[in-house]
C-alpha cells in the first residue's frame, strides 16, 4: 500500500499520547521515575493494566480514533513477565497491528512498544521524551477532526434536505 501522507508539524503543537503500562514493570518504573523525581514531558497519559497482554489492538485504534497523536505500550522485558509470557503475546499481536496501522496510513512512530522493567525509571523518561519529540515532528493526527471533515460531504446534503421539500431535494446535489 502507498506511503502514509500526513500534514507536517503544526506550530506550538503539543502531541497527546496515551500509554498503556503493565502494572508489574513499566507502571512500577514510572512510579520509580516519580520517586526519583526524574523530569519528563507531560504529554503522556498512563492507563494501567495488569499485563501488557491485556492490551487489545482495539484499545490502540480507539485511542487514535478518540484523538491520540501517539500510543505507547510498555511491558516487562521478554522473559521477565510477571505472568510468564504475557509480553510475548503482546509482541506478536502488536507486530501485526503495526503492519495494519501502516496500511491505514498511520505513520511509523505514532505507535510504539517498549520493554521497560520496574528498575528502569530513567528509561521511562528517555522513551517518553523521545516519543514526544518524534510525534511532535510528525504533527497532529487528529482523527476526530478528520472524521468530521470526511463527513462534511454528507452533512451538507443534510442541510439541503432539511431546507427543501423532499420531492425537489431528490434532484439537488
Amino acid at each position: 500500500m502507498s506511503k502514509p501522507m500526513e500534514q507536517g508539524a503544526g506550530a506550538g503543537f503539543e502531541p497527546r499520547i496515551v500509554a498503556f503500562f503493565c502494572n508489574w514493570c513499566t507502571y512500577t518504573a514510572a512510579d520509580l521515575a516519580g520517586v526519583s523525581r526524574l523530569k519528563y514531558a507531560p504529554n503522556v497519559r498512563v492507563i494501567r493494566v495488569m499485563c501488557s497482554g491485556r492490551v487489545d489492538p482495539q484499545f490502540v485504534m480507539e485511542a487514535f480514533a478518540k484523538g491520540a497523536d501517539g500510543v505507547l505500550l510498555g511491558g516487562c522485558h521478554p522473559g521477565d513477565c510477571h505472568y510468564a509470557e504475557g509480553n510475548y503475546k503482546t509482541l506478536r499481536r502488536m507486530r501485526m497491528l503495526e503492519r495494519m496501522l501502516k496500511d491505514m496510513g498511520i505513520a511509523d512512530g505514532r505507535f510504539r512498544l517498549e520493554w521497560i522493567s520496574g528498575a528502569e525509571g530513567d528509561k521511562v523518561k528517555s522513551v517518553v521524551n523521545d516519543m514526544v519529540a518524534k510525534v511532535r515532528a510528525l504533527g497532529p493526527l487528529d482523527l476526530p477532526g478528520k472524521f468530521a471533515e470526511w463527513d462534511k460531504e454528507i452533512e451538507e446534503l443534510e442541510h439541503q434536505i432539511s431546507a427543501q421539500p423532499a420531492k425537489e431535494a431528490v434532484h439537488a446535489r
Partner: protein
Amino acid sequence: MADNNGNKPQPIGLPRIGFYVCHCGSNIAGTIDVAEVAQFVAGLPGVVVSRDYKYMCSDPGQEMIAQDIKEHKLDRLVVAACSPNLHEETFRKAAAKGGLNSFLFQMVNIREHASWVHEDKKAATAKAKGLARAAVYRVRFHKPLEKQQVPVDPNVLVVGGGIAGIHAALTLANAGKKVTLVEREATIGGHMALFDKTFPTLDCAACILTPKMSAVKSHPNITLWTYSEVAKVDGYVGNYKVTVKRKPRYVKEDLCVGCMECIDACVFKEPKFTDQFNQGLGKRKPVYIDFPQATPKVVLIDPQSCIQLKTGKCKKSCAEACDRDAIDFTQKEETRELQVGAIVLATGFQAFDAKKEPRYGYGRYPGVYTALEIERLVNASGPTSGEVVLRDGRHPKSVGIIHCVGSRDAKTNKWCSRVCCMYSLKLAHLIQEHSGAEVYNFYIDMRAPGKAYEEFYDKLLSEGVHFIRGRVSEVTDWAMTPEEEGKLVLRVEDTLAGFVRRIPVDMVVLATGLEPKADAQEVRRRFNIGCGNEGFFQERHPKLAPVNTFTDGIFIAGACQAPRDIPDTVAQAGAAAAEALVLIDAGHVELEPNTSHVVEEECCGCKSCVPLCPYGAITFDEAKKKASINEVLCKGCGVCAAACPSGSIRQNLFEDEEIFSEIEGVLAK
C-alpha cells in the same frame, strides 16, 4: 449515528461519584493546582462531591470519605493521590468503612506520574485533570466485587536437602507442620556435608550438620524423600499439587539398616568406579553409600556399573549377604503426588566449572585442584582420610590458592561469590595444618564482611600464610629456572609490589565461585517463579521480601537465591519457614478479584483462550463445548480477555467498557 457500538448496553442512569484529590502536603499541591482539579471534576457528569484535602491517606482524610459516602449516598469513589501500589488498599478500606464495596473505587496517580515528574504547573494540572476525568468515566462501569478466600493446606514441601532445606524443614516440623523434604541426591547434607571445617570458627562441619541430618530422619513430622525430584507443580497458593519422581535405589529403604555387608560382599573385590561424592578423588563399588553419616543411611546400587543390572548375569553376592533381603533389582522409578499449602525452594548452587578457565590448567595439570576437591582431601572422612597428597602421591611443599575463579570476572561470572575469600583462608589454614606446606593466596581484594571474619583474616596473616594481591594470569609447567623444574608456576602481577612475579608451587587450588544450578531455569519454570539476569531465583523484593517470590506460597532460601555462606543461609531458611508458617496459620488466602471469567452463553468454544493461560486456569469443558476459567488459578493478567475473539471473556476491574471509557476520559477535550 452508530459509533461501532453494536447493541452494547450503556450504564443505566448517572452514578453518584465522590472525588477526592490529595495535596500530599506540597508533594502534589506544589506542582498541581488541586483546587482547580477538584473544581473541574465537580463539573463532570455524575460527580456529587469533589474535594481536595491535605493528606487523603491520613485518618481524618479516610474518615471524610467514609462520612461523605454515607451522607451523600455515594455509589462510586475516585481518589487522586499517589500510586495505587502505595495506597489503593488504604482507600478501598475507607470505601468499605463508608459502607461502599471496595471495588467501586478507582485511584488516580497524580504524584509519581505527574507532580513529581513535571515542572510546568499548567501542564501538570491539565494532566491531572485528564487522568481524573478518565477515572470518573471509568468508575461508573465498576461492579461490586468480593475478594475470595481459599483455605490453605497446612502441609509444606521443602525442595533441597542442603543446610537450608534441612533447617527450614526442621523449623516447620518443630512448629507442628507436616513437611516433605525432597532431595535429588541419595543423601541430604548438600555441599556442607563435603566440608571438614567451617569458617570462621573452624568447628567441624559434620559435628554441627549430622545431628540436624539425623533429626530430619527421625522427626515424626518430616517425610524424607531422597534420590527424588519434583517433576510437576500444579495449583496455587495454599493448594499446590506436586508430583515427585523417586528414582530406584535397588535397595528397599525401609529394610536397609546401612550395615554395608553388601558392599563388602560385592563381586568387585576392589572399588574401581569414580566416587562423585568425593569429587572423583576416590573410588567406590557398584553398591555403595556416599559417606558414613549419609542420611538416610541406606546403600544404593549404580545401574551403570552393576553387572546384575547391566547384564542380569551376576551371582548377586550382595543380595545373599543381606540378611534383611533389602536388595531388590526389580525396583522401578515411582511417581508420588503431594498436596501442600506452601513450598520452600532450597535447591542451592553449583560450583563454577574450573575447566572454563583453561589458563589455570585444571584438568591439564594433575597438580591443579578445585576448592571442593581440597575440602575432601583435608576431610578426615575423605578419600585420603585428611592427608594432603597430590594425585601422584607426593606431598606438596608449596600450595597456591587462586581466588575469584569464576567470580568478579566479566568473561565468566560478574558477581562476587561472597564465600570464596573466607573459605580460601580456611583451606589455607587447613592445608598448612595438615601438610605444613607454604601457602600462597592470590587475591584481588580480601572480602571479610561478617561476624568474626576480619579477625579470622588477621589470624591467618599471623600464621604466616602468604598473600599476594593480583589476579593470576596463568598457571604453567614451563620452567624458566632450575628451581621451577617439575613445579607449577603461577604468573601474577603483584599489584602491591608493582612487578610481575613467578611463583613455583606443587599444588594449585582454584577458589571456584558459586553459580546457579545448571537446571535453575527449568526449575523456576516448574515452580513458576522468576530468575534474575545472573540466573539465581528472583526474590519478590531485594530488601523487603527477600524470601518471597512473585508466586504466592513459594519461598526461597539459601544459595539458590544468591551466593551466601552458612550462617546467612540458615538465617534465610528460618525466614522462609516463618513466611510459610504465616501463610499456613492464617488458614486461608485472599485473592485479588481482578480475575477473568468466561460468559458461558457467549462462548463459542473456539479454544483460542485455552493455550494462552500459563497457569492452566482455562480448561475446555468437553461436555458443554465451552471454555471455563478457574478463578482461583487465574492470576488476573487479562491476556485471555484481550484475546477472546468474540469478547466473551471479561476481566474484573479491567473490562472493555472500563478501559474504553478511560481512553475517552484521558483524551476528551
